[in-house]
């Protein structure tokens, strides 16, 4: 269980000021983040060092879906070879249609599950820091700290930059 210092700021500008002041502490990358009701532009208050990986899963999902669709269609043709309408047993145009649909379904599900995983939703144990007052126009600045000394320094910087209700909480970022 880690310690997080969390403080509320009135707007983007004051949060950005606090973030700039915190840079003096040379905290490890990814230990400072905001919790806000609207997405803040990258670099406005904090930057996100981790690359976004799940689009690759989406592409993989598309191909997996295409393979599944192809397998489904070919299996239905070849397992039960019945002549209909004088067409060949393995009819290509319907195969393309079904393959395409299942491919899109695969990409869709990959986006859902890959994105969901990378957004780190549903964390167990669900002890993560949060402040519901962000929905009233505040921005929460959260800093992951290591030890009492760092916690004190972070707290004082945030208070000096205009943060209200700056406190330490046990939880993950």
């Amino acid at each position, binding site marked *: 269980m880690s310690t997080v210092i969390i403080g509320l700021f009135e707007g983007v500008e004051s949060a950005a000021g606090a973030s700039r002041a915190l840079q003096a502490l040379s905290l490890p990358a990814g230990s400072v983040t905001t919790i806000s009701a609207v997405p803040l532009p990258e670099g406005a208050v904090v930057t996100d060092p981790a690359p976004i990986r799940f689009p690759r899963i989406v592409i993989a999902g598309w191909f997996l879906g295409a393979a599944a669709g192809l397998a489904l269609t070919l299996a239905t043709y070849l397992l*039960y070879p*019945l*002549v*209909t*309408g*004088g*067409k060949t047993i393995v009819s290509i145009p319907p195969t393309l249609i079904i393959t395409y649909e299942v491919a899109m379904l695969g990409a869709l599900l990959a986006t859902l599950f890959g994105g969901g995983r990378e957004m780190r939703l549903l964390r167990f144990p669900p002890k993560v820091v949060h402040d519901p007052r962000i929905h009233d126009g505040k921005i929460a600045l959260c800093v992951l700290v290591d030890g009492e000394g760092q916690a004190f320094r972070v707290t004082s910087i945030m208070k000096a930059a205009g943060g209200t209700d700056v406190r330490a909480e046990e939880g993950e970022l």
Partner: protein
Amino acid sequence: MKHTWAMAIDLDRCTGCGACVVACNAENNIPVIGEAEAAKSRLMHWIRVNRYWEGEFPEAQAIYLPIPCMQCERAPCELVCPVYATYHNEDGLNAMVYNRCIGTRYCANNCPYSVRVFNWYDYKWEKPLDEQLSPDLTVRSRGVMEKCTFCIQRIRRAKEAAAEEGRGIRDGDVVPACVQTCPPGAMVFGDLADPHSEITRKLKDPRRFRLMEHLGTEPRVVYLKRQKGAGR
């Protein structure tokens, strides 16, 4: 042995009497739906006799066209059934699988000859009419498509009899109900794979034509054009 069943209908001989329709109804457990349903255009005849009028009174002429299932080589109905309730069997017939049909009615929409009929209700044969039912084929439930099968039950019987006697099917062994009944003998049925059968000879007739050939269905029912001569 592979068969290629086909039918020839000589329009010169057809009088439009409709005996083929009655025979088919009797042979294939087809319900009589009644006047009210018939007025709603729900007749269940597997073979129907189309009647077209040519000319105006007093020179109006009726043209009769008996239409069974064409058993198309490239049947458009087979292609669109989502559950394989109709498919092309080895004898080149368009086979029906009543138990499989879920009643989407797409096959009926795709048949340009409109030979497919649908069971709108569960039809009942009140006693003693149930004794007229043929045990060789089913009574179809509501929600199921049906159509002419070239009397496949008679084809099966002939195949069984031939197999018992250790021979192939001879020309004339298989006679569908409509062909059997036609009073003027306008209908001929047989195996095109047999080079000596009557149907093979009939199909060399220069009067031959198929219905809606331009649609590419390749029907197995061939018509022989009516000749126009003195007094016709």
